[in-house]
Structure formats: structure tokens, C-alpha cells
């Protein structure tokens, strides 16, 4: 793997450290931007102004907010389950950073170019759930526990259509490529779309739609934001967290949104491929466009009821994604 940033420096440990620091810095700036974007877009949709005071268009507002969160006292409620309560934010935060380091930002630019990149992204996504549950349980608060229970049920259910929908793309890439092609390698999926000259959303529209819906649910975004439904659960699993600990949850949430958007960009929208502009520009333009749609949906649709959420997943999305996978397999075999 000569084309990865980690391998540019001589010492592997140093490379990994530089990579982690870089990813964390990039994610932090990105979260600050996304929070600002979310507030602005929601304001536009509701005919408000949004943040205007700090910096041009209020862009520095989130930096001020972050400084406030950093400087706040960390309050630990008296009857929390201390070990779980303290580990939970870390457990939510670390997998996000790890998953974010797996993407090909440009033709030969990625921190890690792994053959199992796609599976690894989902594996790290699954780890985050454990952290969410630790938080909900450790808080010793009924709203937090209810939020965590909902989050766990929702996440393990929607993980199935999420993975099945991406699997049909993997299958297709393997069928289209030669013996050395690996559909689970994110860089190869992107470059295959570049070589073939079309985006996979055109040949896998069903998978793309299923993926997008499941991704909304995986990131607990509206209309699937039941784990932290403000009107019934205060703030869900992070009710008892304040200051920087709360900020870590917030960070993970927005970064997760960005990660699922990056997966969608790579799998369905050609990754870095695009005319004129440099590849990385295209990659981030597409990713932010998908994130924008996610924000748009949040401020447009009302929240689902929990039973609706579960039955929609098990009765509609999972059968549909299995059907899509089967059809893809048959076509891949026939062609």
C-alpha cells in the first residue's frame, strides 16, 4: 500500500499518530461546520435567521459554543454507575474517529486503503451502540435508559438493511471487475465507477434508497430520532451528560452523519470521480450535498412512532433489500 498517508513516514507508529491527529482535527472542524449548517438550514426552512452575531453569517457561533463547552464544569450526578458513565463518551467517540480514517478522499489519497474497508466502517458503527447503551444505563435515569433501549433496538434492526443494501453494490463490483477486484475496498469501488463512467446509484437505485433510509435511522436522525425524542425523553441517552462529555456525544453524532454520507458518496455517487475540479473537492461536495439532504429531511418530516419504525424496517426494508440482493446476484450471474 504505497499510496496511503500512513505509509509516507518511515515509522508506522508515527504515521498512525499523525493520521489520528489529522482525522480528529478534520472531524472537529467538520462538526463545527455541520452544526452551523444545521442551524442555518433549519432557520431557512422555518423562516428564521439562525445564528447571525458571531462572525460572518454567524459562522463563528459554533466555535464560541465549543469554547463554552470546553470551559464548563463537568457535573457527575451522584447515583450514576461511575465506571460506565465515565467510559461511555469515549466508547462512542473512538469508533467514529477510527471509521473516518478509512475513506479514499481522492484517487490515491486515503489514510488507510484496506481490502475490508466497508466491513470495518460498519464494525466501528456497531461499536458505537455499545457506548450509547453504557451511557443510557450508567446515567441511572429512566429517560436515559429508555432512550438507550430505543437506540439499541433501532440500531440493530436498521443495521441489517444497511449492510444488505451495500452488499448488492459489493456483489456488482466483484461481478464487473476481474479476479483481483474487491468490492469491499472503498477505493476500488470509487475507481470502478470512475472507469466505467457511471455512478452506481443509476444501476442500484433501490439499494441507494434503502441505504439512505437505513443510514438516517442508524445516525438517529429525524424522522427516526426516537432515541432522543425531546418531547418525551428530555434528551435520551445523554440526558445526564454536560460540558465536554456531552460535546463528545454531539461530536460522534454529527461525525456519524458525515461518515454514512461518505459511504454513500463512495458506493453510489462515484467517490472522488468528477470533471474539472480536483477529486477531493468532488468527494466533499458530494458528501456535504448528502448531509444537506439529511438536514433538510430532519426539518421537514415529523417523527415516526416506535412501532411504525420497527415494522417499517422488518416488514418493508429488510425483505426489499434481500430481494434487491437476490436480483443483483441473478443479473451478475447472467451477465
Amino acid at each position, binding site marked *: 500500500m504505497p499510496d496511503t498517508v500512513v505509509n509516507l513516514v518511515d515509522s508506522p507508529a508515527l504515521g498512525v499518530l499523525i493520521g489520528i491527529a489529522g482525522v480528529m482535527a478534520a472531524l472537529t472542524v467538520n462538526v463545527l461546520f455541520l452544526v452551523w449548517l444545521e442551524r442555518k438550514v433549519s432557520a431557512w426552512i422555518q423562516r428564521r435567521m439562525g445564528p447571525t452575531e458571531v462572525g460572518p453569517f454567524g459562522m463563528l457561533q459554533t466555535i464560541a459554543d465549543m469554547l463554552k463547552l470546553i470551559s464548563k464544569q463537568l457535573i457527575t450526578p451522584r447515583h450514576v454507575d461511575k465506571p*460506565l458513565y465515565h467510559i461511555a463518551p469515549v466508547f462512542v467517540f473512538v469508533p467514529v474517529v477510527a471509521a473516518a480514517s478509512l475513506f479514499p478522499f481522492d484517487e490515491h489519497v486515503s489514510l488507510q486503503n*484496506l*481490502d475490508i474497508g466497508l466491513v470495518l466502517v460498519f464494525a466501528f458503527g*456497531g461499536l458505537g451502540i455499545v457506548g450509547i*447503551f453504557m451511557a443510557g444505563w450508567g446515567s441511572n435515569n429512566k429517560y436515559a435508559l429508555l432512550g438507550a433501549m430505543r437506540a*439499541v433496538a433501532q440500531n440493530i434492526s436498521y443495521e441489517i438493511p444497511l449492510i444488505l443494501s451495500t452488499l448488492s453494490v459489493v456483489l456488482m463490483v466483484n461481478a464487473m471487475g476481474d479476479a483481483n477486484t474487491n468490492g469491499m475496498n472503498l477505493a476500488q469501488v470509487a475507481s470502478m465507477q470512475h472507469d466505467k463512467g457511471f455512478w452506481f446509484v443509476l444501476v442500484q437505485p433501490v439499494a441507494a434508497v434503502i441505504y439512505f433510509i437505513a443510514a438516517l435511522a442508524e445516525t438517529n436522525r429525524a424522522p427516526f430520532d426516537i432515541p432522543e425524542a425531546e418531547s418525551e425523553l428530555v434528551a435520551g441517552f445523554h440526558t445526564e451528560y454536560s460540558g465536554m462529555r456531552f460535546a463528545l456525544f454531539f461530536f460522534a453524532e454529527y461525525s456519524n452523519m458525515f461518515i454514512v454520507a461518505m459511504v454513500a458518496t463512495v458506493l453510489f455517487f462515484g467517490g472522488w470521480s468528477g470533471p474539472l475540479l480536483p477529486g477531493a473537492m468532488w468527494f466533499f461536495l458530494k458528501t456535504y450535498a448528502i448531509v444537506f439532504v439529511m438536514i433538510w429531511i430532519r426539518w421537514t418530516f415529523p417523527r415516526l412512532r416506535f412501532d411504525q419504525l420497527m415494522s417499517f424496517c422488518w416488514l418493508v426494508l429488510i425483505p426489499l433489500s434481500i430481494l434487491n440482493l437476490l436480483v443483483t446476484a441473478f443479473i451478475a450471474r447472467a451477465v
Partner: protein
Amino acid sequence: MGGMTGLLMALAVAGALLAVSLKNVLHAIFGLAVTLLAVAGLFVVLGSPFVGTMQVLIYVGGITVAMVFAVMLSTVVQTHQAESPWRRAGAAFVAVGFAVGVGLVIIGAGLPKGLAPALIEDAWSVRQLGTSLLGDYNVVFEVLSVVLLLAIIGAIVISRREEDVVTPAPAAAVEETHP
């Protein structure tokens, strides 16, 4: 054996000790999660990142979460009841017997010493694993899926019976009034 392997092995043992010694069931489950993560790390160090990833995806992200979920749905989390010495002795007997049995099988199998076989290039790649799973070990693979199917059916049977007792007919009527 590199320092990394030693560290991961120590982590795995520490997590396992936590899992069996902690009184709170949830703490024990998270101890188990540490063990499973460390084992995943061992797989990666031994040259099979794919199996390691699957370990994280299935065991940490799936099994642990399912166990946590089961605990969540039951009412008793912390047991304070004293266990009878006989039960402890029985458990110790089973545990030691199992460890000795597995040890004997491993020694008897005559596995090659060292880490070399797993580190052969591509021996554990996704493609190789897939080919052998659906080729040489096809029957085992299918039997495993039947076992999983049985587990699912069992879960449905258990939950159905409770549902019939707890919620009688009115649920459907509510559904009709609020379409």
C-alpha cells in the same frame, strides 16, 4: 510473540476475569466485550484482519448488544443471593474440566508451533475464506445457518407466548381508530 500480542492477550484475560468476577451483570457483559475486542485484535495481529473485523461486527456489535438487550428486558440485574458451595464446586468442576479437555484436544491435534501458517500471504483473505466456506466447508456452513434459524424460531415462540398473555385483543382496535 511481539509486544502487541502480549498486550492483547493480557487484555483478553483481564476482560474475562472482570466478566466472571463482577457482581453487576452489565459490568460483566462489558468485561466480556473487552475480551472479545482483544481477541479481535489478536486476529488482526495474527494476519487476518477480516476475521478480526467480523469478530468486532458480530460479537461486540451483535452478541454483546443482544445480551445487554436481554438484561434490559429482564428485571433483576444485580443478584445478592448467596450461592450454595455445592453449586460453586460444580461450576468450578465444569470450568476446569472444559479447560483441560480443550487443552488436550489442542495438544493432541498436533498444530504446528509458532504463528507462521496464518501469516502466509492471502491464506486468510476474504476471497479464500469465502471459497472455503462455500466450498469445502459448505455442509458446516449450512448446518450453522439451520442452528441460527432454530434460535430465531425459538425466540419468536417465547416472545409470542408472553405477548398473548400480556396484551389481549384491544391492541388491534386502537390501531383502527388511529390509522
